[in-house]
Each structure stands twice: as C-alpha cells, then as structure tokens.
C-alpha cells in the first residue's frame, strides 16, 4: 500500500481494510529511514507510573519515516478532533529535521499503522508527545547527516541542512537531498533517550502561526468522519435502549419491528438491535419493539444529589496538608465557610458517537469517532475474544470529543453487530442516545473553610471536595496552614453517581477553580481590598502573578473594591502545566436575573507556544464553551432517567452569547511547551460569578448560574 493510499484511508475514503501487521511496515511502505521512539520518563505519556505499565504493550510509541521522495511522515496513535495537532506537530517536526513544513504528513489514530498510544486527552500531545517526536526527528537528521557525510566525502561537522537538502558548507555545489539519501535504504533506529531541551529560538516554524492544515477539506465537505464511511453491503443499526440507567429488560416483543421492510432484528444477550440498509427504516423499526423493564433506581435526582453525596459513606483521602489548620484558625481575624455545588455536564459534541464495523474473514476493522483508538481495540479484543492482530481501529477526523470520546461503547456495539450479522454495520448514535450514554462530568460538592488576618493575609485553607475530581484543587495561594481532603467513592460501597461519569474538558478543574476563586473573592471583599490586590498579596507563584498582570493590562483593569457595581470579575488557575488568569465584565438584569457577558480577557502562560494561532483558537474555544457550564448546562435526572436529551433542553453556548474576547499568550520561548486545549476554560465559572457579585452584591455558589439562581441570590443581598 502506498503512502498516499494510507493517507486517503485515514482521512478521505473508507476503502477496504488491509489487515496490516506491524512487522510488515517495511514490506508495505518500502524503503526509507524509520525512527521509532517511546516515552522516556517514569511517568509516561499516559500518566501511569512505570510499574503499572507492565501490562501495556512494550512497543515504541510512534514512528517517523523519511521516504524516498523526501516526505516525512509521522505515525501516531493520537487523533485530530479540532485541537489542531495535525497542524502543530508537523511544525515541530519540520524545525527539527530542517524540512519545509508542507513536507511533513501525519497519519493518525490507526492501530495497525501507529504504535500504541493510550489516547488523546489531557492536553498532553504537545507537552509529552511533541518532545518525543522532536527527539525522533533529531535522530532522523543525525542518520541523514551520517549518510550524507559518506556520500559527499566530508565530515558531518562540515555539513549544512536547509529545506531537506544537505550541503557541503565548503563546496555549496556538493549537496544531496533527504529523498536521495533515503532511496533504496531500510534503516531502523530506536530511541530510548529523553530528548534534551533545545534552544527554541532557532526555530523556523515553531512559534509561528499556522492556519489549520485541515481547514480546506473541512470547508468543502471532503473531510471524512466515521459516519461518512461507506462499505458495500453496509447496514445501519439501531439498538434497543432502556428508558433509564439501572433498568432491566423483563420482556421483549420484536414482531412489530420485523414488519418494517428490510429490517432484521438481531440479539446477543442484552444487546438487541435492528438493522436495515436504510437508516430511517431502522429508526422506524426500533420504536416498534415492545419492551418492558423492571426498575431499581437510585433515590436521587439533580436537586438531591448534593445532600446524597455529603451523607454517603466515603473514602476519605487527604491529598495535601501543610502547617496546622487549627493554628491557622487561631491566627485568623475572620473565618469564612462556603459550600459550592457543581452539576453533571454532558459533552454534547455535535458529532454523536459513531462507528462502522466490518468483519472480513477473521479480521475486525472498526472506523470510529474516538479519542482512544487503542482503548477501543483492546475493548473489542476483550469483548469479542479476538487477538490483537485481528482487530484494527481507525479514527478518522473526530467531530469533537472534550473527553466524551475517550469512552467507546459504540465501537464495541458496532463490532458485536458486525459479527452477529456478517455485514458491515454503521452505528450512529442518536442525539438521545448521546445524552443518555455520555460519560458525564461528575457532579460534586466543595466545602471550603478559610481565614484571613487583620492585614489581609490568608492564614488557613481547609478544602474538602466530595465526588468531584481533584484536578485543579491545588491551593495555589501562599497559605501557611492548608489541607485538601477528597471524599471519594468507597471501594465496594454503593455507587454515588447514578450513571457513568468521566473526563470533561479540564476534568473537574472548572469546579475547583470556581470554588477556590469565589472563596478568594469573598475574603478580598471582607478585607475591604481590591480583588486583584488581594490575590497578588497572597500569591508567590511568579507565573500566575505574570498572568494576572498581563490580563489586567489587556483588560485595562482599574482597581476597585467589590461590589462596586461595575460587574468586573477576576479568576486564576493552573491546568495541564499552564497558568491562566481571567477578567470579565458582565451586565446583570436584576428583574430577570439574566446575565450578559460584555467581555472576557484571558492571559495564558503555556511555555513555548508552538502555534500561536492554534493556541489562540483553543483559548477562544475554551472561553466560549466555558460559558455553557457557567450559565445553562446541567444534566437533569430523576434516578437513572436523564431528562434533557436534546439541544432544545440542554442548552450549549450560541452566537448571541459571544462576548468581546481578548487573549494574551505570554512569551516563554525557552520553556518547554505545556497544554493548551483546556486551561482557558477553567476560570470561566469563577470569573463570571465574581463579576456578578461585583455588579450586584449577589454571591452564587452553584453552577450553572441560571436566571432563577441569580434572582434567588439577589434576594439575599
């Protein structure tokens, strides 16, 4: 299979799977120079300590190939879902190899072609994968220089590289291209070493803005997502779903469904599905199935869940502790106690979970919208009892993930149905299924006790989080006595969440930043201090201080005590290795409780920024998406029954919400690159809550801040 075909298969056409076994790479790809590499540190790409990694494949993590025509291809298990690594990773590669950025191609998310990768999440691609890839590129360049040295008969030190051509510095007419060097060669190199931090200032491509390299095929409709694939004989499936989580099927009658033309009902245990060549006939058929269920649901709903969590028998885990809380309390002049509530959230990507599965002979190939092609492959191996080499997962373009496509139930369902029916099966979840089987951001409660002395120094910080995750729960401020306690699901105890939960963009950091930054604001107000001054007074972290100053500049911040009627809020936080600070201005309609955001500014220190344009887009996206959890998003449920299962009842941000957005990326050219896909979302709830307080004196402790909740808070002013 030619390279061009591989690319096409990944991105453009869903042609027949080829069943490539990894060791056949060379046979298939022909000549060239191949560099393999793998994570270097005790904590690898996956964030797993080395000892827990034993079960994982010992594979090298991806490879780069310099082909006979001089093009460079990077094979990676990571996927493209809008975060832009298809654009930024080639920039890094091009600089390290001294080739034009256009010469670098990415082949992504194909488990047969790309060695193991746990998944695309946590803003980790650029932070952890990028340096590996750069090291591989550097190794590739070293190999090329050796070859050139032999061919041109001069030492390596005398060679110069530019745009993929190696030249004898003393005799510019003597040169050789990468393509010529790679011709007829089959060279393999394996990398184990941790890449050295390079002088980033020498780079040509890194640090410059590039538009999305996939934009052209995305504006013409050419770009293929999993649901756009088509195979001969393909059928559409719809699966019978229970009305609520926890419901058990007691009886079923599918005679009605079978009357719909062209419909076949298939069953494997609890998996009952209809298949039809026509998607809409499948839609018609599935509702004709008569099913009855027994219910054993948790006695909890979206209003009572918080009390339920506080009363649950939890595992108590002290995450961080320093000094003595009681001593800090004694040293405090004023003590503050707050309780914050954060609901379940849906990912609500516009593309629903989708998979096309085909069993050819004994080889299962699945095209899926997933952030975790290898996770899905392993899932299929486990559920269908297939060996590794008999399962291939390909992730074409993914239509939004946000953490929700780290789970891959749809891929396993499609694979089972393909096996049951012997036909290629396309499974595109309905919007209703998407809102039902989503792995929601978990609801949580956060309780904070804190105190300040007469000079406005924070003396203690007692932070307790219940069932929400710990990411972003760091104290950040300079507090002598602090403790962070996590109340978690007890092993073997009854579950607290009535349905599946998982990672949602910057998992739980939104809630933790909301709670911390509102509490800080409460203390600033009580101390009679400007909230920026109060933060700077209690903050030693230089990166955060720099972000605060940068955002204040951009925003044109003028000091003032709150509530000052201006509607201005501040928040800071850290996520994925980066530091962020936000400022916002809002207007609150006190009669309706409706909040209009006038403007939001965000300053981000993300270390070296590989593609400022791409990073800015991520920041803007974070800010806009963050307005959703701030104002409207909340999964409503009664027991296991999710009640808002459509975009009419689960409201995500819209054009009318668009505020003026200003972003600043701090110049950090000599620092390693950090995460950029998530940090700018974490402060939105907090900055808006603080701005609402400044506008009105109303304090909100519960997200989303709906008009009704704003009115409720206004009553207490």
């Amino acid at each position, binding site marked *: 299979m030619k390279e061009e075909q591989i690319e096409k298969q990944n991105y453009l056409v869903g042609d027949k799977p080829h069943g490539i076994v990894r060791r056949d790479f060379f046979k298939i790809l022909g000549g060239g120079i191949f560099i393999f590499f793998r994570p270097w540190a005790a904590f690898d790409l996956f964030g797993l300590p080395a000892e827990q990694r034993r079960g994982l494949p010992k594979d090298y993590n991806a490879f780069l190939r310099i082909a006979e025509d001089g093009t460079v291809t990077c094979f990676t298990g990571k996927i493209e879902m809008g975060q832009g690594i298809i654009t930024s990773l080639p920039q890094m590669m091009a600089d390290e190899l001294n080739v034009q950025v256009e010469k670098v191609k990415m082949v992504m998310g194909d488990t047969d072609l790309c060695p193991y990768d746990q998944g695309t999440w946590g803003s980790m691609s650029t932070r952890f994968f990028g340096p590996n890839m750069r090291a591989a590129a550097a190794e590739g360049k070293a190999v090329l220089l050796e070859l050139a040295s032999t061919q041109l008969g001069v030492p390596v030190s005398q060679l110069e590289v530019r745009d993929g051509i190696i030249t004898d510095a003393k005799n510019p007419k003597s040169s050789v291209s990468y393509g010529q060097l790679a011709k007829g060669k089959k060279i393999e190199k394996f990398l184990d070493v941790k890449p050295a931090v390079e002088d980033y200032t020498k780079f040509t491509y890194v640090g410059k803005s590039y538009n999305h390299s996939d934009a*052209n095929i995305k504006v013409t409709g050419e770009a293929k997502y999993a*649901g756009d694939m088509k195979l001969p004989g393909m059928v559409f499936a719809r699966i019978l779903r229970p009305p609520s989580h926890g419901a058990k099927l007691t009886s079923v009658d599918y005679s009605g469904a079978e009357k719909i033309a062209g419909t076949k009902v298939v069953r494997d245990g609890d998996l009952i599905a209809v298949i039809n060549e026509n998607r809409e006939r499948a839609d018609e058929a599935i509702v004709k199935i008569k099913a009855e269920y027994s219910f054993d649901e948790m006695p909890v709903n979206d209003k009572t869940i918080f009390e339920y969590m506080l009363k649950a028998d939890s595992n108590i885990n002290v995450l961080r502790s320093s000094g003595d809380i009681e001593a800090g309390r004694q040293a405090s002049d004023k003590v503050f106690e707050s309780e914050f509530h954060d609901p379940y959230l849906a990912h609500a990507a516009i593309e629903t979970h989708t998979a096309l599965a085909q069993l050819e002979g004994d080889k299962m190939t699945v095209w899926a919208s997933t952030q975790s092609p290898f996770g899905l492959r392993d899932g299929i191996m486990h559920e269908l009892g297939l060996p590794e080499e008999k399962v291939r997962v390909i992730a074409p373009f993914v239509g939004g993930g946000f953490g929700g496509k780290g789970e891959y139930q749809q891929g396993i369902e499609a694979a089972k149905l393909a096996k049951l029916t012997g036909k290629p099966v396309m499974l595109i979840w309905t919007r209703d299924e998407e809102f039902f089987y989503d792995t929601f951001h978990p609801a949580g409660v956060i309780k904070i006790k804190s105190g300040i002395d007469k000079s406005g120094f924070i003396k203690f910080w007692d932070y307790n989080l219940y069932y929400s995750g710990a990411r972003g729960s760091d104290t950040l401020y300079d507090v002598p006595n602090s403790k962070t306690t996590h109340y978690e699901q007890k092993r073997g105890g009854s579950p607290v969440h009535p349905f599946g939960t998982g990672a949602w963009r910057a998992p739980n950091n939104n809630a933790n930043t909301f709670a911390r930054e509102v509490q800080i604001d409460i203390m600033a107000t009580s101390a009679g201090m400007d909230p920026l001054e109060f933060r700077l007074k209690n903050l030693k972290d230089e990166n955060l201080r720099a972000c605060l100053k940068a955002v204040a500049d951009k925003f044109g911040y003028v000091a003032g005590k709150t509530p000052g009627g201006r509607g201005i809020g501040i928040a800071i936080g850290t996520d994925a290795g980066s530091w962020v600070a936000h400022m916002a201005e809002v207007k609150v309609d006190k009669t309706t409780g409706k909040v209009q955001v006038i403007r939001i500014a965000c300053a981000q220190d993300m270390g070296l920024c590989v593609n400022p344009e791409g990073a800015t887009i991520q920041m803007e996206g974070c800010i806009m998406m963050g307005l959703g959890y701030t104002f409207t998003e909340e999964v409503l449920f009664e027991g296991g029954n999710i009640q808002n299962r459509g975009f009419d009842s689960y409201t*995500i941000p819209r*054009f009318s919400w668009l505020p003026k957005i200003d972003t600043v990326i701090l110049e950090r050219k000599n620092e390693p690159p950090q995460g950029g896909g998530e940090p700018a979302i974490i402060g939105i709830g907090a900055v808006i809550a603080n701005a609402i307080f400044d506008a009105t004196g109303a304090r909100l402790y519960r997200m989303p801040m709906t008009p009704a909740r704003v009115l409720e808070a206004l009553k207490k002013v």
Partner: protein
Amino acid sequence: MEETIKFRLNGKNTEAMIDPTQTLLWVLRNHFGLTGTKFGCGMGFCGACTVLMDNEPVRSCQLSVSEAAGKNVVTIEGLATNGKLHPVQKAFVEHDALQCGFCTPGMIMNATGILLKNPAPSTQQIKDGMENNLCRCGAHLRIVEAVRTASEEMKGGK
C-alpha cells in the same frame, strides 16, 4: 412505495427512484454520497445538516425528499465552482473559523443563505442569523468574522 423525485442538485438536474418520505438528509448522504451534510441531532436543533433549497437555508433532517422535488438544492459539495472556493468557504479558511469541522458545512451553508438574502449584514444580523447553528468547539468569534469578510468580498462583486 418508491417514486421518481426530480430536483436540481449542486447545479445539475438529477432524479432518484426513492421512497419520497425519506428525509433529504439521509437521501443526500446515502443515495447521493454527499456526506458533507452532517447528522448532528436529527431534530432540527443543531443545524449541522443545513443545505440551501432555492437559496434558502433549510434543515435537511426536517424535510422529506419529496419536498425538494422541483427545487434547487445546494450542499457544501456544490458551493465551490471549478475548484475555486466560494467566498464564504475561503473566509472560513482564512479566519480559521473551525476546529473539529463537524458543524462547519452547516455553518457555511447557513451563512451563504444569510448573505444571499442580505449581502451586507451587520454583526448583530450575522449573530442573529447564525444563532440556531450550534458549534461545540466555540469557534463563534471567528465564524462571525468570517461571515463579515465573506460579505465584504461578495459585495465587491466577486
């Protein structure tokens, strides 16, 4: 049950022997292989399936194919002419007005419809006109800018 439905599709007269009750969305995707038109919700709430019908942006998931009979339907695949991007497509590329790209075809078709009706919309009119097309990645700012740029280019007679 099947009947012949005739309409203009991306500039060409076309006909299909087809169940007339099927939605335009699935006919475009499965019968004609025009998969640029996306399924996002199937309920008319997200706009990912937006196409132009007689220059009017419509939700193809909410129309039966029989309603397209005799009409002029344009999908995202039919917007570029002779390989040259339509000004709206071009502006989306220039402004990087997309991330995952899944809502993009619907956004572009809806924006094109807006500009056909009102070649010089104000920013507020652009936002109002785009209000019911949903983007989860948060590309709104750039989409508004792209539509404004496209309107300027189209006004210039291009």
